């Protein structure tokens, strides 16, 4: 379909801007594997320290890129499936807010005013510019969603008997989760951290900020993942030459994500004080629950792909795996989706280990954890984002994809690199190798008294993986930016591959109405977080603490000095 040039420009900007920043994000990913493997024994390279790089890597790759893409892909799915454009005001304001927020964050990170990593754990202090910038970026993404809601209600009035398209359900589930989970993050950054960082208040309740962060932080991972799920259900069957095995099961898994994504955050905090084992166990159960929609998706998509293989004449139980359209440049999107899925098998299984309550003590905060989440966020999430970005960019700008063979092989190279990378990280993690640590300065530096030779082979595997992944990213950037700088050669259209259903399924009433699911979602959140919140206030207290990453001395600002005076 044709769309207005203002919407088109907004969507194209939402692809180009984060992918340009991604160059910085990937560069710092590569630098980290060099530091960790003990190739670099320094605190910083080119005036950017390891931890500044880690902050940039996390914020750009995991917050900026994912949020921009979710919004751009949301504009695409909503416009395409409802055949209506969102209100111009909503998408323009949304883009501006996201750009301003991103620029504020980038300024704070590049000048070293924010280097407390992307989790911004207090009492390490970031500049208020960072907290406010992040909040503005998030509010920008909400604005886009409010525009979609408006046209959705219009569409429903015009089509009273038509089912909500699966892609719309996925997109809306995703943004409902997003709005709900970003409320605690917004409260934490705006109400608790900004005044504290600006020096208006002296104390902060650290366990409270951590609980609020993880209420947001785990739902965030589903916000990354659900656009990929939308592609698996509505695009992958088509590009694989198949039909979706069951769209009812797809609906059910989206709705299960809706109710279970938020009330699980404490599973990041099994090793912390202030929560009772009861609260922790309850969230472990809910986290196991959220594995079910992923297992269902695995089955559904495998059945879909099996059908594709059998249509090509495959034999036996597993023969269909060999008859899929791998490495076909006409069909390059398939590679991005299938490689992501393969990685996600291992990402999902290792995630169950993390969620397993006492078992978490073996791997908590070790390199295992980034080993795990790179197989999710740098697997299905990242690959579907970059694959879809270049696909839609070419359609929307009417250009040919340049160096298409690069774009075709990228996901396979990336997947091989990620295997080395995650294997190294996870093996090291099982031997206690810490995450988020400049190992090259101490643990992997043979001249340091802290040298630990067990972590040399594991970090070397990580290094090899990181180099292969960066090579794949380079090929991608060549293809993407060569496309961006080329001239349009055909009509500019908004177009998505559309999958059909394999079976004709009766619509189940419970899957057609979101209201009961929303009610369950809020009940579960209350059940999970009211006890957690009470425990935070019962077992912890606010502390007068505010620290710069460079110095173990308490930051003295006007509030501290004034309070000290009163004590005398």
């Amino acid at each position, binding site marked *: 379909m044709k769309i207005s040039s203002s919407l088109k420009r907004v969507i194209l900007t939402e692809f180009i801007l984060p992918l340009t920043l991604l160059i910085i994000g990937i560069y710092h990913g590569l630098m980290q594997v060099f530091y960790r493997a003990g190739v670099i024994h320094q*605190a910083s390279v080119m005036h950017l320290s390891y*931890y500044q790089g*880690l902050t940039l890597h996390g914020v750009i790759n995991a917050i900026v890129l994912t949020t921009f893409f979710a919004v751009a892909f949301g504009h695409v799915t909503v416009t395409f499936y409802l055949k209506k454009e969102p209100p111009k005001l909503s998408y323009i304001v949304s883009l501006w807010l996201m750009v301003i927020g991103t620029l504020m964050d980038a300024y704070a990170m590049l000048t070293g005013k924010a280097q*407390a*990593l992307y989790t911004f*754990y207090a*009492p*390490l202090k970031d500049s208020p510019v960072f907290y406010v910038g992040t909040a503005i970026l998030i509010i920008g993404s909400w604005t886009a969603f409010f525009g979609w809601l408006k046209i959705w209600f219009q569409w429903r009035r015009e089509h009273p008997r038509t089912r909500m398209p699966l892609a719309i359900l996925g997109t809306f589930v995703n943004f409902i989760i997003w709005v709900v989970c970003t409320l605690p993050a917004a409260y934490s950054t705006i109400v608790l951290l900004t005044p504290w960082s600006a020096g208006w208040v002296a104390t902060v*309740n*650290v*366990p409270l900020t951590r609980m609020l962060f993880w209420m947001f932080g785990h739902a965030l991972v589903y916000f990354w993942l659900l656009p990929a799920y939308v592609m698996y259900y509505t695009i992958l069957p088509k590009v694989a030459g198949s039909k979706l*095995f069951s769209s*009812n*099961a797809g609906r059910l898994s989206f709705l299960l994500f809706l109710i279970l994504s938020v009330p699980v955050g404490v599973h990041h*905090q*099994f*090793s*912390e*004080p*202030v*929560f*009772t*084992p009861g609260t*922790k*166990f309850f969230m*472990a159960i809910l986290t*196991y629950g959220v594995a*079910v929609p992923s*297992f*269902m998706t695995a*089955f559904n998509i495998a*059945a879909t792909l099996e059908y594709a293989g059998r249509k090509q004449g495959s034999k036996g139980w597993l023969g269909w795996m060999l008859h899929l359209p791998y490495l076909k440049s006409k069909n390059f999107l398939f590679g991005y989706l299938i490689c992501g899925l393969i990685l996600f098998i291992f990402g999902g299984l290792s995630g*169950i280990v993390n969620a*397993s*309550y*006492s*078992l*978490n*003590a*073996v791997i*908590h*905060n070790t390199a295992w954890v980034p080993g795990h989440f790179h197989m999710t966020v740098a697997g299905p999430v990242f690959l579907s984002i970059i694959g879809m970005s270049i696909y839609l960019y070419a359609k929307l700008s009417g250009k040919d994809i340049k160096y298409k063979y690069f774009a075709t092989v990228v996901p396979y190279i990336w997947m091989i690199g990620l295997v080395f990378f995650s294997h190294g990280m996870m093996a090291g993690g099982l031997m*206690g190798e*810490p995450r*988020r*640590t*400049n190992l090259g300065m*101490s643990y992997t530096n043979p001249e340091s008294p*802290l040298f630990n030779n067990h972590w040399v082979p594991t970090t070397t595997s990580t290094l090899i993986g990181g180099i292969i992944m960066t090579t794949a990213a380079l090929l991608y950037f060549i293809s993407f930016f060569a496309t961006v700088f080329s001239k349009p050669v055909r009509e500019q259209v908004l177009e998505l591959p559309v999958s059909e259903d394999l079976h004709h399924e009766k619509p189940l009433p419970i899957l057609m109405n979101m209201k009961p699911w929303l009610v369950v979602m809020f009940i579960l959140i209350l059940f999970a977080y009211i006890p957690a919140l009470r*425990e935070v206030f019962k*077992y*912890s*207290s606010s502390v007068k*603490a505010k*620290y*710069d*990453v*460079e110095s*173990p001395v*308490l930051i003295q600002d006007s509030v501290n000095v004034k309070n000290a005076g009163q004590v005398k």
Partner: protein
Amino acid sequence: MNKYEIRVMLVTGCVMIIFLFALLYNAFSRKIDVPSCVPYSKIFEHPQLKKIDDTTYELYVVAQMWAFAPDEIDIPTGSTVDLFLTSKDVVHGFNIDSKAVNLMAVPGGVNTATIKFTEPGTYNIVCHEYCGAGHQNMLGKFVVKDE
């Protein structure tokens, strides 16, 4: 939904339930559990090792940028240590080598664990939470010796 799909959901549900019971079994029968809560108080900010009897110790560890206090803990083989951990400044980590003791040190909160050392040796304590520019040097140790 087709019958294989329903089966797959049942099987995953059962697998998850088996995992949950395994966790409960470990928590109740083998006492392998997550840390529980101690109300916060300033007394936990004074590092010390108290000998309760021949094989039992109470240990108060304070993490701060960028060392643990005490940073070397000498105890005899076969000791049981009741550990209380907090932080004086920012969030730190506390992961003991070859022991499934993996805790966060959070300012304004007190973490606790019971550790039994049956084998002599040196057990490093690695800070595994980013705590500022000197994070990678933050290492403590237990030295466990036969008496």
